[in-house]
């Protein structure tokens, strides 16, 4: 692959759990191109979330490197990592993780302001982003007034606030029913296709995998297999 956006090289991650050392990743190598939609698939403990956390700069590896746009983010200090997460990465969490005291639009605005948008332009951009995920009319509602799917879509809008090169989704449908899950996946898929955002989606749900350009199966901290799909399935065709 020429000039991949992300290059994981010999990535290892060990955790000390008392006297036991857990090997979450055992020398993972992976290249991801710009605009690709990758699904990391695997059972619990296979290393998929660890990979996502390392690529997102939420965690540091025990060994190896993560190159994003040619820069090794594992060498970043805390300040640089914060900037990296702010400017290049968007996160979608399993539990939505919205700020409970901010409305839907304010949650998006909050992320916009981190990159210096001023009040009025941030507010109107937040509405645009909510429009993209189909929640413009719910802009002034607090998280507690939104359904799980709506909350997750707000979190997608927030993740996209700063035009991230990379959207990292950790079990984004794990807490949602099928119908809402479809809506969320569609929103992610649209962004990938329309905005060209590179997406890494972690799931243990094999039914979701066919929507990806590539399916990376992990097992015991290593890549088990990679399936390239020239014609990924439409979200509407997915069933679980």
């Amino acid at each position, binding site marked *: 692959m020429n000039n991949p956006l992300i290059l994981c090289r010999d990535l290892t991650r060990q955790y000390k759990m008392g006297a036991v050392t857990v090997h979450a990743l055992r020398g993972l190598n992976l290249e991801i191109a710009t605009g690709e939609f990758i699904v990391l698939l695997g059972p619990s403990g296979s290393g998929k979330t660890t990979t996502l956390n390392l690529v997102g700069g939420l965690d540091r590896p025990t060994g190896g490197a993560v190159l994003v746009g040619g820069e090794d983010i594992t060498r970043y200090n805390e300040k640089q990592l914060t900037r990296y997460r702010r*400017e290049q990465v968007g996160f979608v969490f399993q539990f939505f993780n919205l700020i*409970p*005291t901010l409305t839907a639009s304010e949650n998006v605005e*909050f992320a916009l*302001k981190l990159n210096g948008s001023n009040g009025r332009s*941030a507010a109107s951009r937040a509405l645009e982003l909510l429009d993209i995920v189909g929640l413009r009319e719910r802009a*002034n509602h607090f998280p507690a007034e939104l359904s799980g799917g709506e909350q997750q879509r707000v979190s997608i809008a927030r993740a996209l606030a*700063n035009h991230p090169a990379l959207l990292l989704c950790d079990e984004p449908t794990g807490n949602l029913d099928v119908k809402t899950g479809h809506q969320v996946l569609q929103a992610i898929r649209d962004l990938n296709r329309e905005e060209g955002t590179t997406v890494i989606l972690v799931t243990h749900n094999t039914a979701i995998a066919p929507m990806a350009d590539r399916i990376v199966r992990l097992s015991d901290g290593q890549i088990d297999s990679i399936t390239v799909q020239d014609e990924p399935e439409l979200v509407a065709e997915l069933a679980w």
Partner: protein
Amino acid sequence: MNKLFMRKTLRDFRASWAQSVALMFIVALGIAAYVALVGSYRDLKSSYDRTYETLHFADATFAVAEAPLAVADELRALAGVTAVTPRLIRDTGYELPDGEPIRARLIGLPQTTQPDVNQLVIAEGQFFSDGATPTSLVEAHFADIYGIQPGDAVTPIINGDSVPLRVAGIGISPEYLIVSPSQQDMFPSARTFAVLWLPLTTVQILTGSNADVVNEFTVLLDETAVADTVIRQIQEILQPYELETTILQTDQPSNALLQQDVAGYKELANMMPAIILLVAAISVYVLLGRMVRAQQPQVGLMKALGYGTSDVLRHYLLFALVIGLVGLVLGVCGGIPLARWVTSTYAQELSIPFVQTQFYPDLVMQSVLISLALCLLAGYGPARSAARLAPAEAMRIDPAVALVNGRQNFLERMLPLPLEMRLPLRNVLRMRRRSLTTGLGIVFAFILVLMVWAMFDSMSIFMDQNFEKVERWDVTAVFDKPQNNATLELVRSWDGVIAAEPIIQLPVTLLTGDEREDVLLTAVQPDQQMHALQLPEGDTATAVLGDNQIVLSQALAEELGLHAGDEITVDTPFGKQAFTVSSTTKELVSTAVYVSIDDALALSPFPMAIFNGLYLQVEPSAVSRIKADLYHLPGTASVARKTDLYNDLLEMLNLFYTFMGVMFLFALGMAFALLFNATTVNVLERQRELATMRSIGTSNWQIAAQITAENVVLWLLCLVPGLLLGYAVALQLGDAFSSELFSLDITIAPTSYVITSLGILLTMLLAAWPAIRRVNRLNLAEATKVLV
């Protein structure tokens, strides 16, 4: 108890060790305050009682003009009389080393061994020794102030001459634990009043009295005797010898001041720990409740696994019990030595010879009950509500959903603040339960700090007010024989005297309805300038004095329920007279009343204008000389400099300041623990939210700034209620501290409000710092997944 639960309890402590330690600290402070203050009050009281009992403190003292020594035998023969000591008392002057005269009292004792009544403790040296040079025992406070030791010479002024006496020893007397010459002297006067004990014959010879003549009998009564009857019999026996005064133990000047002091201490010793314990109780309830509530999903899990409600309750009660027990042990262990320290400091200050410190098992038992009840109750409420939840419900708790509900309110729509300002405001206003509990901690911190600070301030402001604004004289003279205008004109003619104003001071009794109140009446000229009456706005001294009008101290008027226009009878040594209450004046001394000098003269049997006291304003350079000249006037009983009175009072207030200093440390310690716990829990409850912010690119300092902004908002919201409640509690304390003699008006300096407020803000910001650091070091990958 399930061993696993025990292990979990221990691990819960480890996981939240800082908050647990802060809770234990709060309980410990409450218990320590209770044990130390109530214990030291009991110790002090038993120390006085023991001192009085051991030294045979007189039950009554009878002063006569002159009586033969043998009358003492007549008194001893009375049923109900245990012991009698006849004495010869001569009030005279004393020349300090720099030549300045002060008051002195020579007390002639009939034997060269300890008297039967009012015995002395010889702190240094020995009792009177035989020898060619007359020897004396010097009162301990006076000796201490002027560094007098056995072998030195003391110099009373007798018949105008300075007479050197060798000091045989330093004596501590139950009569002078607080040195006060007479009932009329409201203030202690250790530095301006020398008490010297001498053999009776020495006093007789030095003062030219007849042999075997005495003028005072100190009497000890049998405990079973009917005191009134025996006293009446004694008075009858002494009547032929011109009985002048009968002073019962309760009215004895030192004892009266001491009892006032102890009464004030008792009030504070009961009230302050009560406030601290109450604050501790509510704080533990709130904070422990928050800790238990934060574990609601765990409760759900325990129940889902099959543990019953009672198992869950027992587990959290164990958690509360451990906090209570550790707090109890620390509190009792800290409180007992602290009680001893307070008692010994107090006793040392007053030279109380027989200090008694005890271990009070009942206090410990009460502490056990208080601390355990406190923590069990605090743990029970939240544990019970958590345990009652259906397991699924308890496990599903998500702060994002559970804590915030509702639409944007009107205020939020009206105030289009930028997001950076809206967020901290929302976090405070919409997380109501969290904000209320944190706010309660902040308000308590305000109350604790402000109530003690108010006592410091009030005392200092009141002292300044009294000695600068009210008392405008520099020197005062009291005469034991009435003086006339010739003396006044003479004094006014002296070099260095700027102004001199006559006063008449009389101990009188106010009669109103069934109530009697012994007070000190001061008669002044209505236009006088030396004692500025602190009248309500609109009243002037010239309007409220004269025409049989009387001005009462505000505290006295409140105590007797009197108002302007009420009638009152004044019982004086010369007869009764009706007066109309015209106004009130704010005075340090509660028992002060004022009339015009003309009204007072109308009562007196003397045909001419007379007075028995003088207020003088003098040139600073002439103070010593004028003081000496006043002493040499015939009939002068005492001369005092205002600054000496001020210093004596300040010395007495050392005890107050010691007590308040201890309270201040308690208040600060508890306020810090409260703020630390409240702010820490506040941050830690939101780990996931803050971790999410960091995940999406919020920097560490932005997180710190946001938490700081929230704390500032909380502080602003608590500012007014905190200050108001702090002031209200201080008012209650002021009331409790005020006695029949002194009234303490609660005033808090504006700077104290500012320092308290800023101090609390600073403490909040510092207290939040460890939690902020913890959030900023969180494993984001983990923290963003944790539900609660």
